[in-house]
């Protein structure tokens, strides 16, 4: 008999492994409805990756939405308790416009949220789980980590006007040093400060390489406590996961919602990031919560075309019978094949477009064989 695990798709195996990983750290599963009141998204539109939401009117006339996001609903429905820690994980479908096609798509997400008193341990645990989630998908992975607190401190210290900050962050996200230099110069920024921003974009690598270098360059220029926080978190992480961590300041989630460490996960062979997250105390505050929060989501739809098993055949044995076949003998023979670990498709005529390893005509081969034997 074949193990039933063999029939699971790669996505399904990943989901099981992620659930087990998150449960092992005391995260409890959060189940939710597919629908949410549209108002929740209208009030936090910038938090959503795409601002298009599928809406409908429910039986009481309320405008509802098919969930484009999970985090907002979890915050809304979780008790605010800043003194302790609450840990939840989820595995849900969300509905968003897909990249490039401009059509809605159902996207499976798995992720977790940690609410409450967020300290360096909680951050370290979430980063660990993010890195381990990536490693479940593939060993060839990278978790890019940035710190929006550091970027904010720099922009503040370099007197970057508020109206230009979103543009500057966008350029940092694109690693676009040439346009960043032009924009900063047009804002009248000091050339030394512009060079520091350019260095921030172009410097990426392991925390051991990058953090001391940045601390050195930024000392005396701005508050570098976020670098110290990154260092503390990095030092606390298991040695086996350290090679996966990469400091890269081009990870820039929305500064209106996120405040501290932010990160994105990449897998070799998948063109976009498969995991994204960070600390979002600002969103919590905006939703009148006193707790801090950190979490991430892994986009499992991105795994659709990854690690596909060789699919040579649809079925091992195509078993053909006729109207005169002894059905109990046919059924017994099919069961024998199944017990031998083969997959069986029983039919009277060969269907179109089916790929089989072996075709057995029950009346000619099996019955005759048995007779002959």
């Amino acid at each position, binding site marked *: 008999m074949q193990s039933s695990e063999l029939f699971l798709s790669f996505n399904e195996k990943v989901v099981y492994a992620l659930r087990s990983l998150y449960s092992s750290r005391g995260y409890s599963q959060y189940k939710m409805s597919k629908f949410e009141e549209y108002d929740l998204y209208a009030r936090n539109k910038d938090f959503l990756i795409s601002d298009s939401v599928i809406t409908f009117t429910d039986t009481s006339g309320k405008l509802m939405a098919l969930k484009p996001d999970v985090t907002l609903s979890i915050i809304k429905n979780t008790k605010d308790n800043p003194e302790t820690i609450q840990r939840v994980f989820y595995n849900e479908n969300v509905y968003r416009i897909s990249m*490039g096609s401009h059509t809605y798509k159902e996207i499976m997400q798995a992720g977790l949220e940690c609410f409450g008193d967020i300290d360096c341990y909680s951050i370290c645990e979430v980063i660990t789980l993010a890195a381990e989630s990536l490693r479940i998908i593939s060993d060839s992975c990278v978790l890019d980590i940035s710190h929006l607190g550091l970027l904010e401190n720099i922009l503040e210290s370099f007197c970057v006007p508020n109206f230009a900050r979103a543009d500057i962050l966008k350029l940092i996200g694109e690693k676009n040093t040439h346009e960043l230099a032009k924009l900063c110069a047009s804002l009248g920024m000091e050339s030394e400060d512009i060079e520091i921003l350019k260095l921030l974009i172009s410097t990426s690598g392991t925390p051991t390489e990058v953090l001391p270098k940045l601390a050195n360059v930024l000392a005396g220029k701005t508050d570098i406590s976020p670098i110290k926080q990154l260092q503390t978190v990095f030092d606390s992480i298991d040695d086996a996961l350290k090679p996966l961590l990469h400091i890269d300041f081009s990870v820039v989630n929305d500064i209106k919602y996120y405040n501290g460490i932010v990160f994105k996960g990449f*897998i070799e062979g998948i*063109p*976009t990031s498969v995991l994204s997250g960070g600390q979002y105390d600002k969103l919590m505050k905006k939703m009148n919560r006193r707790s801090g929060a950190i979490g991430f989501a892994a986009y499992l739809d991105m795994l659709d075309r990854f690690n596909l098993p060789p699919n040579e055949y649809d079925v091992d044995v195509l078993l053909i019978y006729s109207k005169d076949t002894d059905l109990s003998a046919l059924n017994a023979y099919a069961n024998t094949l199944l017990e031998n670990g083969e997959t069986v498709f029983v039919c009277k005529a060969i269907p179109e477009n089916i790929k089989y390893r072996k075709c057995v005509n029950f009346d000619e081969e099996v019955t005759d064989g048995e007779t002959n034997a």
Partner: protein
Amino acid sequence: MVKPMLNVALPKGRLGEKVYAMFEKAGFSCPSIKENNRKLIFENEEAGVRYFWVKPSDVAIYVERGAADIGVAGKDILLEYKPDVYELLDLDIGKCRMAVAAKRNFRYDMSRTLRVATKFKNIASSYYLSKGMNIDIIHLNGSIEIAPILDLSDVIVDIVETGTTLKENELQVIEEIVPISARFIANKTSYKFKSESIEKIASELSAQTEARK
């Protein structure tokens, strides 16, 4: 260990040829690309590079979706389609400008919705949105210049290189939206896993660009 190939999407046409010359000078040559045939993919295993010619407006898609690790695309395409890629360099070639053009006697009539013919509907929409103007976009795929002449539109938003086509059709640039040039772009995942080769190319191309200035 086999060196991973770096896939490069080049824009078909004169700009692509200029770009290939830059890559060649940077040490990433592929002699077969110069053979006179209809092939679209060329490989130099030794240099670890594979080039393919694609429609200029498709380069960003190939790079965003990881079919190409790197590529060269016009800033117009990047502004219009906003692909999720790294924009690593301004190569300072293929220079032109995105501009609004209209008939010589044109002036804005704020009491009416402005009709704008363009191939670049996102660029045109965000430009007029930033000016607080209400517009009606007419999406065309070519010969944009005839739209104001036939009174299909009031203005056009298009790429202007020398301005000759506009002049010959009795149009003139009334506003410049943004300068355009060719940009060196990279897929975000490829940048993580092939960073050494990508950074080497970026640094060589940057040196060539600086030397030209």
